[in-house]
């Protein structure tokens, strides 16, 4: 059975509205022993290091690096259910049982822990840190929760296994099972405890110290396939001139792209505009002339092209597997301006020395690049990746430039891409 977003939304909404669970301290003691240790978030540095290693080992381009950081998701115990198990879970969810306790019995406990004798729904212990805040109103409150993106917050339904719908990156909802289940007013678990370290609940999350809970409503929405993106890149590559007589054969590359992308199933089509800056130091014009007159003077003109700024029109298609994205594409480029430094020698002595920009008459008026890339989605709208580009047209267009030209210069870039999804 396939659930639509609207059906799931309605299902969670109904379940949340009908479910009222009164607080029982015994639950918390049970939960406390089963809480996983919250791993330290390693942050962006880890990703930069991983990406750098990927660049260094270019062969890993086509290798899917497994994601091992358990701290990315709080709910590490969640596992995907098969369609069958999801169906079963949903059936159990539809028959949610309200567990009520004697209000008088719970008063003392609640006062001790700071709760105001509120019948609440307990959440999955593994998701306590993501528990939606509860608005205090009339002392009694029901938590109605759905998550349109990650659905980190999940309700634990006594006597029912909570369904944990999560949207993947393509906007498709996946169903995940909560590891907790309440049977006969006691919490039982299906979690493999080998992977979970335990800490006292109050030390880790201070849940008992929470003065209040705030209720927030979430609506499930599918992700729009239309998006804008901004991509910056930096990398190294081969200079248009092979010879290193006048400098390094390597070049630095910087790129900035802006465009539109469209998601179709696991494929994404991107097109946009961009600029790229290539910096090199071995592209020279060196010319000498003897000026005869009363004697002779040697005049040397040295032009060193230091950079080339290009306007780009990138086109790419990407295939996404979970958070791994493989891409291939083409790019048309049009040189705009090139940086140049000019030195004039007369009889070996510097006569003129200046820097500036000049036209791109010494470069091909257009270029074509083929590229392949790999990216990892580090957030719902952020990707970091690498790509390898190859110029398909020799960029040098003048015999005045000395040295052997590099007909197919290669370059690589690390990229960071920000996607701005259109709102539906």
């Amino acid at each position, binding site marked *: 059975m396939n659930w639509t977003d609207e059906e799931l939304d309605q299902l969670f909404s109904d379940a949340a509205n009908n479910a009222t669970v009164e607080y029982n301290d015994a639950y918390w003691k049970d939960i406390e022993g089963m809480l996983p240790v919250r791993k330290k978030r390693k942050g962006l540095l880890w990703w930069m290091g991983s990406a750098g290693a990927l660049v260094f080992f270019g062969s890993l381009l086509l290798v899917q690096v497994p994601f091992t950081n358990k701290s990315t998701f709080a709910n590490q115990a969640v596992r995907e259910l098969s369609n069958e198990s999801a169906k079963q879970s949903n059936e159990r969810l539809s028959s949610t049982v309200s567990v009520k306790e004697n209000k008088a019995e719970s008063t003392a406990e609640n006062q001790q822990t700071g709760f105001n004798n509120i019948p609440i729904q307990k959440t999955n212990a593994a998701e306590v840190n993501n528990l939606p805040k509860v608005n205090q109103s009339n002392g009694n409150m029901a938590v109605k929760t759905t998550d349109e993106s990650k659905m980190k917050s999940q309700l634990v339904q006594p006597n029912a296994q909570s369904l944990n719908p999560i949207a993947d990156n393509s906007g498709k909802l996946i169903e995940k099972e909560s590891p907790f289940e309440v049977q006969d007013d006691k919490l039982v678990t299906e979690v493999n405890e080998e992977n979970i370290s335990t800490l006292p609940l109050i030390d880790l999350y201070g849940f008992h110290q929470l003065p209040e809970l705030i209720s927030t409503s979430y609506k499930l929405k599918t992700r729009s396939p239309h998006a804008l993106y*901004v991509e910056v890149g930096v990398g190294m590559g081969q200079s248009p001139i092979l010879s290193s007589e006048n400098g390094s054969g390597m070049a630095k590359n910087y790129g900035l792209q802006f465009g539109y992308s469209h998601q179709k199933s696991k494929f994404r089509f991107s097109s946009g505009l961009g600029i790229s800056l290539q910096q090199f130091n071995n592209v020279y014009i060196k010319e000498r002339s003897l000026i005869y*007159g*009363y004697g002779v003077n040697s005049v040397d003109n040295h032009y060193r092209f230091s950079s080339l700024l290009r306007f780009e029109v990138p086109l790419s298609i990407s295939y996404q597997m979970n958070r791994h994205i493989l891409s291939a594409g083409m790019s048309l480029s049009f040189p*705009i*301006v090139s940086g*140049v430094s000019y030195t004039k020698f007369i009889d070996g002595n510097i006569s003129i020395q200046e820097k500036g920009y*000049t036209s791109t*008459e010494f470069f091909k008026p257009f270029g074509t690049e083929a590229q392949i890339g790999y990216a990892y989605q580090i957030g719902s709208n952020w990707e970091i990746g690498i790509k390898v580009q190859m110029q398909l047209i020799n960029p040098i267009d003048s015999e005045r430039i000395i040295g052997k030209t590099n007909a197919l210069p290669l370059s690589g870039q690390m990229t960071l891409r920000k996607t701005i999804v259109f709102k539906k």
Partner: protein
Amino acid sequence: MKKEMKYTGMILLLFAMMLVSSCKKKTIEDPMTVSSPIFTATGNLGSESFLLEAGNNSVFMSTYINVSNGVQVYSGKLGNDQMEIEIGIHESNIDLEGAFSIQNLPTSLDFAALPSQPLAFLSKDLLPNSMFIQEVRWFINGVFSGVNDVEIIEPGKYNVCAEVKFLDETEATLCNDMILGFAVNASCKIRHILQSNGFLKVWLDESSTPIDHVLWYLDDVLVSENLSLDTTIDTDNHLVSANIYYQNGAHRKKSILVDGSLSGKLIDDFSVFENGSVSQMKWDNSVILKVKKNGLVYSSTAADNTSSSIQLLSLSYYGKNSAGKDVYKCIASVIVNVREGQSGAVLPLNFTTTFGLEMH
């Protein structure tokens, strides 16, 4: 959508800035053309051929104006340590200020040759009051040249001074300019009468061309602008000078020393001696050529070049030299004999050249 618009605007602004910054561009010069030597000379000296190219083999073209015997010689020198050719062209119409014009150069130029006889003979005995003179010491261009009798051989414009010692041991000095071996466009004699009452009348006689005006100086003081000078002097010696401006543009200065005591201790205008050389050779626009090769110096003036000539094929302005003077480039064909100074050997020299000459 507001967020998307913000990103779009930001990126477009960035593109616009990049495009604007690329508008101011430096132009890269076209490839420099391969130039070739400009000043060259190629030909034969005797049986040996030579090739001189300024810029190659340390050959250099230098240009200058040489002053020889008071006359400007527009010159150039092309060569290196092994061989060197020097060519000079004498100015013409040296008594006409600013009369020389590069455009007036004839296409065929003669070589300057030394005269077989002196151009001028300066002698005490030729002075009209020689009977009152004990001795005359001659100075040419400030250099003592002899006593009583002196010969001037080479053409030029000379400043000749006569230091006269009279019989009574008194001395007086008079200087005059003399043009010898060059065309003289105006000439005249300065004459005077001194009366016993001290009245002095000085005038110009036998003028070859109409006089425009005259400035008279008595003891270096301007006293009159008339064609003749009428004045009164005392019994001392007085220097009377006339700056004569002829209608054809010629300018001469003549001086006499007047004896106010009427005892014959005067010095008349001895520049009249130049008139005797008028019919002789003229070095106007004549060419002198020297060749240095292997330490030997060959000169055209010492050889017989009556049938030699230099043909100017073209003459055009080239530019300024390092001294800021104008240089003209002449293409010429030269056939000349040169004589080595020590051995007296005469060698035929023929060559074609593109030569530089400083002129003004």
